[in-house]
């Protein structure tokens, strides 16, 4: 059996177990409501979940724009100029090790418990890996490629557009993959902590009244968002970086950045 088929089989059996175990009474519905009762709970409150999803997606979209835009811009500056690099990089690296969620209560004091504080927190949360990856992507460009371009008479702007940007794309994308995932984490976690709307808020509210099917309906929605995001990044990677198989830079950066990003969110 192929690895892909096996993987599919595992997923299907897990889903089946999710339905069977609670129904057969092996697991109390409070701990794990069956898949069907979870879906039913979500369906019955479709309006509420729909509204929460809209709030969460709006926060994610804005945060994503800030995190990715800012991360790529600042990463490009830091990666290409040595002086800002010396100034900024040590700060960024130590900031990366701090559980940033400790700042979230401060943001709610400054910005209130609405979307603004979530956007601020998630933007900073996703910004760091994107920036680090972009800086690394630009720093690790083979100087031989730039020398070759110069020998063919490429001007500074031609070197930027035709060499530096395409060479950095795979590393930047792997940074976006991590940064974007952290944006989703950041939004949902901050909604769960202090908030009045969004999927995270619903999960947290239903938890306090021990309504497990409704909690799991929210969890399912967050899972779906993460899976959709991952699929989107994969699609972009395939489109933009067909040649990635031929270089090790993108692969290496992905390996370097991924483990550090697995720090717990709370």
């Amino acid at each position, binding site marked *: 059996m192929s690895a892909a088929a096996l993987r599919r089989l595992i997923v299907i059996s897990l889903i089946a177990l999710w339905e069977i175990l609670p129904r057969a009474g092996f697991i109390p519905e409070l701990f794990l409501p069956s898949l069907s009762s979870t879906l039913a709970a979500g369906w019955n409150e479709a309006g509420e979940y729909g509204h929460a999803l809209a709030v969460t997606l709006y926060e994610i979209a804005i945060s994503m724009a800030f995190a990715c835009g800012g991360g790529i811009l600042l990463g490009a500056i830091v990666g290409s100029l040595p002086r800002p690099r010396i100034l900024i990089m040590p700060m960024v690296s130590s900031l990366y090790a701090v559980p940033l969620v400790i700042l979230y209560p401060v943001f709610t004091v400054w910005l209130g418990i609405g979307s603004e504080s979530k956007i601020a927190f998630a933007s900073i949360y996703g910004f760091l890996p994107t920036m680090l990856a972009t800086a690394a992507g630009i720093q690790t460009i*083979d100087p*031989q490629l730039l020398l*070759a371009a110069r*020998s*063919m008479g490429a001007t500074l702007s031609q070197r930027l557009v035709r060499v530096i940007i395409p*060479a950095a794309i795979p590393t930047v994308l792997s940074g976006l993959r991590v940064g974007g995932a952290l944006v989703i984490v950041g939004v949902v976690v901050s909604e769960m902590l202090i908030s009045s709307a969004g999927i995270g808020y619903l999960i947290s509210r239903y938890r306090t009244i021990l309504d497990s099917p409704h909690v799991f309906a929210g969890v399912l929605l967050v899972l779906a968002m993460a899976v959709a995001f991952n699929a989107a990044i994969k699609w972009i990677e395939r489109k933009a970086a067909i040649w990635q*198989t*031929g270089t090790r830079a993108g692969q290496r950066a992905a390996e370097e950045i991924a483990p550090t990003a697995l720090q717990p969110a709370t």
Partner: protein
Amino acid sequence: MQPLANITPLKPAGAIEVRNVGQIFKTTTQDVVALENVSLDVKPGRFVVLVGPSGCGKSTLLMMMAGLRQQTSGTITVSGAPIPEPDPNRVGVVFQEASLFPWLTAEENVEFPLALRGVAKGDRRGRAQDALKLVGLDGFGKRHPHELSGGMKQRVSIARGLVQDPPVLLMDEPFAALDEQTRMTMGDELLRIWAATGKTVVFVTHSLTEAVYLADEVIVMSPRPGRIVDHLQVSLPRPRTYEMLSGDTFGSLRDRIWRHIRKSA
């Protein structure tokens, strides 16, 4: 009316003149003399090899001929004019290992210098295909570099260096990363391309065998400071063949270069 004698005759295309060139690298602790008082004449259409141990400045000299680096003192002219910056119409450069852009196909890599100059797409494609045909890669244009062998990649690099038809081709250890067999084949291929195009070639290498096998003239350099210690004429007839490698002429030329290099190492 100006007297005709005042008009300087145009130097023939492809000639390289190096006059009393020095290069000093400034570091924070000390100044390193990379090249000292180097003078050299390369006549059009000649195949000249620069050989010497690491740090003798042979690559530095080549980079200066390409306009990629400026000398601290002295003058360098290519086809009669100084070369303050790279000029792909006068000089094509082929680098060590693959300096091909991995996200472009072989064809697009060869077109790259033309695209920089805004040459129309159709014209570009035709010239790239001609250059690829010249280096024996007809039909491989749509492949990406990672789909090509080491030797094929260097053929693409040569095609890229030749696509604007410059009279001079500078090569910086182009075959250093190739295995021995590919290296021999590529040497023969390069000689065939050189004979077909009549370019002036300046070729940097570590390999004494490669130097003697390819060259009309071998320039031997030594380090600390980098300077020219010998200038050999290789009298072996062309086309060069594998059998010449075991001949007396070949052996004595190689020994002579080796004695210089051993002394300076």
